[in-house]
């Protein structure tokens, strides 16, 4: 039941915020903040309570679950379930949710109520994606989260918001429908094999499939997740959407929506279609490396702060894809840590871009220079997150990418070496960003206020979280490890066996 509450709190608070904004916009903001805080608190309690017994869970494989009949004639259940992996991801969701509400406190001044409605509903949709283990429900949540996100970009975005929002919607919708076809293909294949109509994840695991069928279905799922992740040839929506979205939108896009793609690959693609994934692994890993290098190179060439950070996401998520298709313990752990760390560090970089835009009304690096003199605390924080992004040891991203590279090395040294070059590129773009924006003389004679109390309250926990992940990731790893072991058990033979 607690899982229902997590979603219901967000949905109801969204409506309440919308209604109260008529009288007081401030009240709407507080409602939204209270809802995200409450959800975050609930997940913390859950984590504390079940931390000790993650490997021997009370309800089968799940910490908590809700299973209601929804559309019985199709065998569709309203089935939400929580395990260590989804726990961490929804914790990240609510954490970044709090950040998004706080960061919009001053930035969003018109249509405040409707903004918070959309903000909370997109968080609810994302929570649904991370919790759903009925494939129909998963698809439902997957599509539903698009609509509020579309509005966030289309109404409160920057100059080219119409173009960016429509592009975002069309890309995800098309790929999502391909996944729907694959889901239905699996559904009927399962019925053909067992005589049972079901969308239940755990029952669909191990459905016997012909190798052609499995290949096409796997591709259907993969394309949907690849667009979200994003993987290189289908990434073009991302820089537009991230750049044009309001700060909260960028934080949610980069921090959470991209993770839904990674989560899908991890939870569905490989376990449901192990053999097809095995055959596809060389392609996927090559695409991942292309993404790492290409995203990094493009990031080097950007003059727009947000666009630069957006391209770094392409590069970082390449590591996640690499780790998932390498499919061994180290690589998978690395992939999950990268997902979380990237959510925090990139989210924070978008927050900083938002703070700069609020103060300077520009995102162009040319217009910035020597900001350290006028805003030392903000610049210091930016430096830290940029270092996180380049993979400095001691910060979360390092742990993740290092583990991914170690895991991948066992599978393909060549791809590992190429991916390592990506880390080098990251050094260039991250340092270039810091140099151009914050170091050097204050050419444009900016005189700007430094971080206020609210802004410090946003960034400080993010710094702490990133340091924690970098220095002592053990509790987090203990939480998702049993899940990864279980996922690996579904796959009988190694997924990636490339020629060395």
């Amino acid at each position: 039941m607690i899982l229902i509450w997590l979603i219901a709190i967000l949905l109801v608070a969204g409506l309440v915020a919308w209604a109260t904004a008529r009288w007081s916009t401030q009240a709407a903001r507080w409602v939204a903040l209270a809802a995200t805080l409450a959800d975050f608190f609930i997940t913390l309690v859950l984590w504390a309570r079940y931390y000790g017994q993650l490997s021997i869970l009370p309800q089968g494989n799940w910490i908590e679950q809700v299973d209601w009949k929804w559309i019985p004639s199709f065998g569709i259940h309203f089935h939400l379930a929580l395990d260590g992996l989804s726990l961490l991801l929804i914790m990240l969701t609510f954490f970044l949710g709090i950040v998004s509400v706080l960061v919009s406190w001053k930035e969003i001044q018109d249509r405040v109520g409707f903004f918070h409605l959309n903000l909370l509903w997109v968080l609810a949709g994302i929570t649904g994606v991370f919790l759903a283990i009925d494939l129909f429900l998963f698809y439902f949540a997957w599509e539903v989260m698009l609509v509020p996100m579309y509005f966030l970009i289309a109404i409160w975005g920057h100059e080219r918001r119409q173009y960016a929002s429509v592009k975002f919607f069309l890309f995800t919708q098309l790929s999502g429908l391909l996944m729907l076809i694959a889901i239905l293909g699996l559904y009927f294949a399962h019925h053909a094999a067992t005589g049972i109509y079901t969308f239940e994840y755990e029952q669909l695991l191990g459905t016997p499939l012909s190798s052609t069928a499995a290949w096409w279905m796997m591709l259907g799922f993969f394309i949907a997740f690849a667009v979200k992740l994003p993987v290189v040839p289908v990434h073009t929506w991302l820089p537009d959407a991230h750049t044009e979205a309001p700060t909260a939108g960028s934080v949610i896009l980069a921090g959470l929506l991209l993770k839904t793609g990674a989560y899908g690959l991890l939870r569905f693609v490989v376990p449901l279609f192990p053999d097809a994934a095995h055959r596809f692994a060389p392609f996927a890993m090559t695409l991942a490396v292309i993404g790492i290098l290409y995203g990094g190179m493009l990031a080097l060439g950007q003059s727009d702060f947000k666009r630069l950070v957006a391209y770094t996401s392409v590069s970082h998520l390449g590591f996640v894809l690499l780790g998932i298709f390498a499919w061994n313990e180290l690589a998978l752990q690395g992939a999950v840590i990268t997902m979380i760390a990237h959510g925090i560090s990139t989210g924070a970089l978008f927050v900083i871009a938002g703070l700069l835009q609020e103060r300077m009304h520009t995102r162009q690096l040319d217009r910035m220079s020597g900001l350290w003199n006028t805003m030392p605390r903000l610049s210091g924080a930016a430096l830290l997150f940029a270092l996180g992004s380049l993979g400095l040891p001691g910060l979360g991203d390092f742990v993740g990418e290092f583990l991914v590279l170690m895991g991948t090395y066992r599978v393909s040294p060549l791809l590992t070496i190429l991916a390592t070059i990506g880390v080098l590129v990251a050094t260039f773009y991250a340092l270039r960003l810091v140099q151009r924006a914050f170091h050097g003389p204050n050419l444009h004679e900016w005189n700007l206020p430094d971080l206020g109390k609210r802004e410090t309250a946003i960034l400080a926990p993010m710094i702490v979280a990133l340091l924690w992940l970098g220095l002592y990731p053990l509790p987090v790893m203990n939480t998702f490890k049993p899940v990864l072991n279980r996922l690996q058990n579904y796959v009988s033979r190694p997924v990636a066996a490339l020629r060395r």
Partner: protein
Amino acid sequence: MNGTDAIALLPLIVLAGTAVLVMLATAVRRNHGFTLILTLAGLAAAFGCIWIAASTVPRQVTSLLLIDDYSLFYFGLLIAASFAVAILCYDYFEKHDINREELYILLLIATLGGAVLVASSHFASFFLGLEMLSISLYAMVSYLPLRRLPLEAGIKYLILAATSAAILLFGMALIYADLGTMNFSRVAYALGAGSSSDTLLLCGVVLIITGIGFKLAVFPFHLWTPDVYEGAPAPVAAFVATVSKGAMFALLLRYFYRSGADANRQLLLVFTIIAIASMIGGNLLALLQDNVKRVLAYSSIAHMGYLLVAFLTGGQMGARAVTFYLVAYFITTLGAFGVVSVLSGGDAEAEHIADYQGLFWRRPALAGVFTVMLLSLAGIPMTAGFLGKFYIVAAGASSANWALILILVVTSVIGLYYYLRIVAVMYFTPEQEPVLIAPQISTLGGVVLGTLAILLLWVGTYPSPLLNMIRTVFPS
């Protein structure tokens, strides 16, 4: 014909009686409000009679009409849609200073025609129903005689519908010459029995498909649709899009699916081509439009294409999917045209995309309803349209019709683009306040739209009651 037959026909009899009653009442004294109440009461009574008739089904009443669960289900759908259209008409024509009462007579006769189509089992009743529907529509489409566009639309519809009816009749004649019967089930049996070498029969059937295709406005028989939708008063356009097309599709579904005629490969090929052409053509042409009514017209062409995909699946699954999708399509289309209708004023229709600029910030509820309707047309979750599309894709997947499904998916994403365009305009903050065509939204219109929106979300999130009802119509 005996008493039981009369009970089985009760919904039709009540509809016909109401039409006469409204006519008499109008002759005595013109009163728009009273006419509406009489019409609504008649429709509600006819709706209620479905349950009385249900005790007699299945029943073949003469050789013309077959009343069974299937007919009754579609009676209910058509009558409910007419009910909504009648209220929208009242709201719409209140703003016009003309004789309005006859419209309701036409509406009732057209509904009766649709119901006869659904129940028909013979060429004679098929043609009778079709003409009752069409002839009423000629007048309804051009019901604003002082405006240019409705007249043009009416004449266009008249000429094309008359031509297509002639083609249809010729097809029937050919089949009668060949088989010596005008009974549908025997014709369908002959088709299904693999007599595909029977040229005369095939010619006749293809001519009939042309006639049906015209009514459904599928590609390439769609040319009248955008002009008629644009010219007709918005609630009448809603009627054309729902009752007229729905009744025809129900007829098609009954005879090509239930009798095993779907085994005929040539016919399947014809329908496949029509389906693909409708999906692609409808969606691509809608991209070029700036007029909301024309967008809805082209999108309805595409939706008929989606329906044909489920139709081509055949079997239980396909028939159920078609029926579910039709219900979703009815609710959505009525809602979308309802918004246009409610927003239109006495002087002009709210049909240009610019009329909708920033609507959300001025009329949040109305824009919200329109958004939900458009998202349902696009097939976004939480709406009936999503589950409808899901059902169709599921039906296609169950029969491994992958090519058709892929085309459906790709074209429906194109569709999403033009729906989003309208949505985006509604949420756009205009530089200056645009002039509102309708200064006031009536409570009545609001109630209809609100009900439709709630129905849409209800079917979209909790479809089990509807699914169970459809199951009883198509028992496995």
